[in-house]
Structures are given as structure tokens and as C-alpha cells.
């Protein structure tokens, strides 16, 4: 039906005109126009990363080695996981300052539960730790929505209280060691060359299939769809990037196993954010809470769910951080962790004001933040102070780029 009307009226109706199939040339023209009008997507971040990487390379030749960059992936995994949760919080226009210590609580619970006198096996303790961190998120969410308090204050209280819980749990010991290899292998496993290839190829095939299928579904529905050459071009780009990544990893220790976890969570959470009602409601609440309420969305419930999700992802991040160190110390969750996680989401392009952002921004932002951390660590005589200053400046630059591109978009009516 719709296809028919499209053909009949395409000359008279602007709305319908936009629905017909675009040719490859037109598509590229549109793309170019969007780029020019400030809708740059991930380009500034990737470009920024290349610049940062080049700067480090001139200062520390060890930076652009496969060994170091695979190590970087392991270093950023914990922060990226926490930042995934932060993205959802920011989409609501809220903030969660407690995630760093919630992640530490999960790490401590996991480590202590596996030790005497409890001796709980890891496959029970791991879910328990994640349940605990999710319940902490539930607690925060319920307090925030029941008493209508700003999330800033409630999670600040959580930040303090959970840091205290970590201290008390660890007690005099100072450090709790994780010996269970099932846990430490999460971050210490590097895939063999063959497995690396299999993972890469699976990723490419999955991407190609979903991309082609979803475009075909739009075509069949008579809706605007991308021209096939563009689809194939995108697939080739993704394939080349993936193959390059696999070759690069294999030239060192191999692809770190956490890469797979990072990608699986990225895909899963992106699906939740972009393709489910829940995700749609998160964006709606962040964009216009009153509109969401009038549309019959249970706003408070969505907010609680999001804080639970942030708690869960903090738990996942905490487990990865604990696994990487092989222990949990009293300083777990402290230092830069919280700000790195929030900075990662924001640098990646998620707005602090709600309603705008993507899950992948956490991954890209974590890459930037941890690259700076990693790179400055390789250069001799760089103090911790300098690292924080550089990270701060990059965050500032990211926010400014975001603000400028948004203004540009508004001016051009996009």
C-alpha cells in the first residue's frame, strides 16, 4: 500500500519523496553534507585517538607495539564496562557517582567469598557479586525515586558509604588475593592466532548478515533504505578493520579475551538501547520526562531499572579490575576510576544533559582515556599529576567539540 502511494505522489509530497530509494551518488552526497554540517559521529574521536597515538609514538617507541596495545585493551576493559552503565545513566540526564566503589564492592565480595572461611566456588560467587552490585543500584534508584532526590546527592552518599564498606570488608588484611584461575583468566587469556581469526570472521559475518537483513526489511516495507553498494562498502570497511585488528593482535600475544566480552556487552547493550522499548523509554525520559509520563511510560520505574543496570555494569567492571590485579586492595575503586568512567562516556559523545548518546561512546571514550593513561605511563619522568591534567584537557576538548557540533546541527536544522 505505502509503496504504491510513494510512487504515485513522490513528485508532489516532500515527505514521500524522502521515502524513495536513494542512489549511491545521492547517498554519498547526503553523507558529505551531514559531515559538513557538523554531524561527525565518531570521526572526531577516532581522529583524536590517532593524534594522541602519534604524539605518544614520538615520545615512547614502545607505544605502538602489539604488546602494548593489547595490554591497553586489558587496561581499559574495566573502565569501559563501568562506562557502559554510565551511558544509560547519562541518557536519563542523571549521574551516578557511586559506580567506582560499587565496582569495588563486587570485587571484594568475589575475592573474599572464594577464600576461607567461605570457600564458595567462583561460579556461584561471580553471579552473587553481580547480584549484589545490581541490588546496590536498585537501592540507589529506589531512594532517588521514592524521595525525589537528586541522583547526584544520593550516589555521592553511596560513593562515601560504599568506600567505607570496602574498607571494612577488607579490614586489616589490606589486600585480598584472588587465586582462582577461572577469574584471573578473564583478563590474562590471550586468544591463539587461530581462535583470533575465528572470532574476527564470526564478527564480520554477523555484521554483514544483520546489516543486509535489516536493510532488506526496510526495502520490503517500502521505506527509505541504503543503496546496496553502500551496504557492501560498509561491510568491506568493517571487515578490513577487523582483519587488521586480528593481524595486529596476532603479531603480539594475540587478541585479549576481554575484547570478546567488551564486544558482546557492546552489542547487547546497544540492542537494548536502540531496539527495545526499554531503551526507547530511557531516551524519552532523558529527552522530555513530562512527555514520557504523558505517553504512559512509568518514568520512575525506568529510572530505577537504569540505576540497577549501572550497578550491574559496575559489578562487571569491578570483577574485571579485580581479575586484572589478581587481588582487591583497600584502595580499590578509588583514584581516577570514577572520573575515568564518567569521562569515558562523555568523551565518547554522550551528553551530560540527557537524551543524547550511544553505548559505543563508552568504549571509544575509555579507549581515549586509557590511551592517555597508558601512553603517559610509557614516557619517562611524567608525573601522575601530568596524566590527570592531560586527561582533563581531553575531556574539556571533547565537551567543547560536542557543544560546537550540536550548535552547528541546530543551525542547519538537523
Amino acid at each position, binding site marked *: 500500500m505505502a509503496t504504491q502511494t510513494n510512487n504515485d505522489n513522490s513528485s508532489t509530497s516532500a*515527505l514521500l519523496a*524522502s521515502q524513495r530509494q536513494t542512489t549511491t551518488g545521492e547517498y554519498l552526497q547526503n553523507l558529505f553534507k551531514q559531515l559538513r554540517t557538523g554531524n561527525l559521529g565518531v570521526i572526531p574521536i577516532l581522529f583524536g585517538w590517532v593524534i594522541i597515538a602519534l604524539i605518544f609514538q614520538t615520545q615512547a617507541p614502545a607505544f605502538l607495539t602489539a604488546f602494548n596495545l593489547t595490554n591497553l585493551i586489558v587496561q581499559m576493559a574495566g573502565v569501559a564496562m563501568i562506562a557502559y552503565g554510565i551511558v544509560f545513566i547519562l541518557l536519563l540526564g542523571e549521574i551516578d557517582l557511586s559506580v567506582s566503589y560499587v565496582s569495588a564492592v563486587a570485587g571484594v565480595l568475589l575475592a573474599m567469598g572464594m577464600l576461607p572461611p567461605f570457600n564458595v566456588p567462583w561460579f556461584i560467587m561471580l553471579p552473587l557479586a553481580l547480584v549484589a552490585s545490581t541490588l546496590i543500584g536498585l537501592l540507589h534508584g529506589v531512594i532517588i525515586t521514592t524521595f525525589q532526590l537528586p541522583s547526584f546527592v544520593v550516589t555521592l552518599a553511596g560513593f562515601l558509604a560504599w568506600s567505607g564498606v570496602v574498607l571494612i570488608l577488607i579490614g586489616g588484611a589490606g589486600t585480598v588475593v584472588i587465586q582462582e584461575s577461572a577469574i584471573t583468566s578473564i583478563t590474562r587469556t590471550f586468544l591463539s592466532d587461530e581462535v583470533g581469526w575465528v572470532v574476527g570472521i564470526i564478527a564480520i559475518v554477523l555484521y554483514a548478515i544483520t546489516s543486509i537483513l535489516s536493510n532488506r526489511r*526496510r526495502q520490503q516495507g517500502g*521505506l527509505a533504505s541504503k543503496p546496496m553498494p553502500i551496504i557492501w562498502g560498509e561491510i568491506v570497511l568493517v571487515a578490513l578493520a577487523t582483519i587488521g585488528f586480528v593481524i595486529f593482535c596476532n603479531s603480539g600475544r594475540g587478541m585479549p579475551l576481554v575484547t570478546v566480552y567488551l564486544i558482546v556487552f557492546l552489542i547487547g547493550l546497544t540492542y537494548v538501547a536502540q531496539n527495545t522499548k526499554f531503551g526507547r523509554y530511557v*531516551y524519552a525520559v532523558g529527552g522530555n520526562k513530562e*512527555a*514520557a509520563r504523558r*505517553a504512559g511510560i512509568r518514568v520512575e520505574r525506568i529510572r530505577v531499572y537504569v540505576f540497577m543496570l549501572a550497578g550491574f555494569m559496575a559489578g562487571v567492571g569491578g570483577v574485571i579490575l579485580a581479575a586484572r590485579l589478581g587481588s582487591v586492595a583497600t584502595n580499590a575503586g578509588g583514584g581516577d576510576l570514577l572520573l575515568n568512567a564518567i569521562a569515558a562516556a562523555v568523551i565518547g559523545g554522550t551528553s551530560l544533559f540527557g537524551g543524547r548518546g550511544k553505548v559505543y561512546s563508552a568504549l571509544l571514550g575509555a579507549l581515549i582515556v586509557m590511551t592517555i593513561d597508558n601512553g603517559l605511563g610509557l614516557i619517562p619522568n611524567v608525573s601522575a599529576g601530568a596524566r590527570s591534567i592531560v586527561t582533563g584537557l581531553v575531556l574539556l576538548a571533547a565537551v567543547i567539540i560536542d557543544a560546537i557540533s550540536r550548535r552547528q546541527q541546530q543551525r542547519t536544522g*538537523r
Partner: protein
Amino acid sequence: MSTQPILKTVGVTKRFGAIQALTEVNFEVCEGEIMALVGDNGAGKSTLIKGIAGIYAFDEGDVFFQDRKVTINSPRDASQLGIEVVYQDLALADNLDVVANMFLGRERTGPFARLDEASMEKSCVDTLNSLAVTTLRSVRLPVASLSGGQRQSIAVAKAVMWNSKVVILDEPTAALGVAQTRQVLDLVQRLSEKGLAVVMISHNLHDIFEVADRIAVLRLGQMVNVFERKNSSQQDIVHAMTAGRLKSVPGMAVE
């Protein structure tokens, strides 16, 4: 235009503490009819609309929908009956695109809880076409990038997409320029041509005289009169709004 009212209030009264916001108001609107609701500030227009929309309950009086007595306790009840209200602030999420806004809260899903974007987009385009809303470049644009008239059109289209029978528009042209007002008034006209009952609150008598079939005048919480547009002038309406005869003046003893 059928003469049988689809929505009717009989003697509805609403008090907020000591303030008598509505006093025994009888109001009705028929299928295919555009009923304007006018009155000075504080006349009770919004109170009447909110009562019908289920934001709060009337203290006394009955609401009839298709000759059935109904109780509307929530906006959900109202939309189940087929009554939709487009408030002045439109309640659109700026960051979402047109399709997402039109389906907000009633998304269609397929397997794996996946939003069925293709089907929603198609219905959205169909609805906008049927209302001849054609100035949009694409239904995938975020609402933030639309003009005031386009936003108003989207809000109205959103309200009528759900087989609604009565659409209540709160000041639909208040914030719009001349061309955009034209757009929206045309849209209002099309709604009534499609057989919907339209209630339009407005301060702008010019707009009202352009589209309304009948004009109900509220003053100080009481229904002063319902005018046929054909048989009345703007002076009649202004007179009724400002000096209409009341059964009783609030705060004064009834003689």
C-alpha cells in the same frame, strides 16, 4: 455532521479548595464537528479539559461518551475511550525522531522484544499523508529540528493515530506565525472532515471563526452560551466572554 453528541458533560462542577473552578457546566461536541471553547483567563477552560482527559475527577456531574455514562479516572481511561488531548506544550521528546514520538508508549515490537521500526515508520508516514502533513523532509528527523507548525502537526497526528474519536487541542495556534497557523487550521479542518470531534481551546477569535462550527463560551466557571458560528459575530463572543449573564457570581450571594 451528526447531531448526536459523542461527548457530553452534564452539570459538572469542580472546586479547588475555596475556589469554584466549574459550576454545573454542560458541554458537548458531535462527530465531525469543530467546537471552540473560549473564555477569559481563569474561566475554567483548562479545568474542564483536564477533567475530561482524566487528569482529575469532577466533584459533581456526569460525563457521557456515545450516550454511555463513563467515569474517566486517568488519561489512560480517556485514551481508551478515544479521547486524546494535545496540550499546549505538545509533550514531544525533542531528541527522538518523528516516528518514535508518534509511537511513544505504544511501540510495536517483534521477536526478541525488537522494536518493529519498519512497520511503525510505515504507519507514521501513512497517518501523516492522510492528514496531508507534507512539509516534513523525513520522519526520521529529530523533533528538535522541526518548525513550530510541524511540531504541532506531529502532536495532532500522534493524537489521531490511535483511532481516537475526540481530539482536544489546547491553544494549537498560540505560538505560531501566519503560515504555520494556516497549516494547523487546515489540519484541524481535515480532522473534522475525517469524522472526528474536535474541541479547540483558543484565545484567537479570528482562528476560531475560520474553522469552528460552534463556539462555547465559559465565564468564571460557568457556561454562558453556545453560539452557532454562522449566526454570531466576534462581538457576540467577546461580549459573552466578558459580560455574559451568570446564574451566580462567585463570592456574591445569590439573589
